[in-house]
């Protein structure tokens, strides 16, 4: 086959990047155990309030600098366990987010961080994040969920410990 030298270089470059990409995805999934935020863990969406741990939303310390944050989303509210909808987290803490929705699909984006997932009724969405930088972060819904979509928000304050 008569192939130009440049064409060979470009094909090698393209195949090489594809291979590198697939290897990174493989290592991430099978060696590091990364998975989508909603990974087939289900619950009955009609009985969220009676199901552990969603019957008691809020921040719980589960270890040294390790917390579990349980949040229940519904139109148009995030139940974070407190009326002022503000959660305080010490800087450097690792937080396991454990979130579900009672009614329709909602978004779950903590602006300015890597926490960003979709909440589907009947599924539990989880994400683990370590808060390296202090500051005030807004938790907001980024999936249009109805007339009050823009009112759906909460605040996470990462404070110096």
């Amino acid at each position: 086959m008569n192939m130009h030298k440049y064409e060979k270089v470009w094909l090698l470059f393209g195949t090489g990047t594809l291979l590198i990409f697939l290897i990174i995805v493989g290592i991430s999934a099978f060696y590091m155990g990364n998975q989508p935020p909603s990974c087939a863990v289900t619950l009955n969406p009609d009985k969220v309030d009676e199901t552990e741990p969603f019957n008691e939303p809020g921040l719980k310390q589960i270890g040294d600098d390790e917390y579990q944050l349980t949040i229940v989303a519904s139109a148009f509210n995030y139940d974070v366990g407190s009326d002022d909808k503000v959660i305080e987290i010490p800087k450097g803490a690792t937080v396991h987010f454990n979130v579900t929705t009672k009614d329709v699909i909602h978004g779950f984006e903590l602006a300015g961080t890597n926490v960003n997932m979709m909440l589907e009724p009947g599924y539990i969405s989880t994400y683990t994040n370590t808060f390296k930088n202090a500051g005030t972060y807004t938790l907001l819904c980024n999936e249009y969920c109805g007339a009050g979509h823009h009112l759906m928000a909460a605040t996470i304050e990462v404070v110096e410990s």
Partner: protein
Amino acid sequence: MANPQTQHHIEKKEVHKEKGNDYKGTFMSVMLLGGFLILSWVGVWILYLIR
């Protein structure tokens, strides 16, 4: 019988030579596009790491 084969070979070579010069610009633009893609990926990855 050897003549047509030789002729064909020469023709092929000539066509190849003629087009060879035109590919430099194509190659450069394709490589620039590839470089831009890789820089974008690295940028997104750095953003993921520092957040």
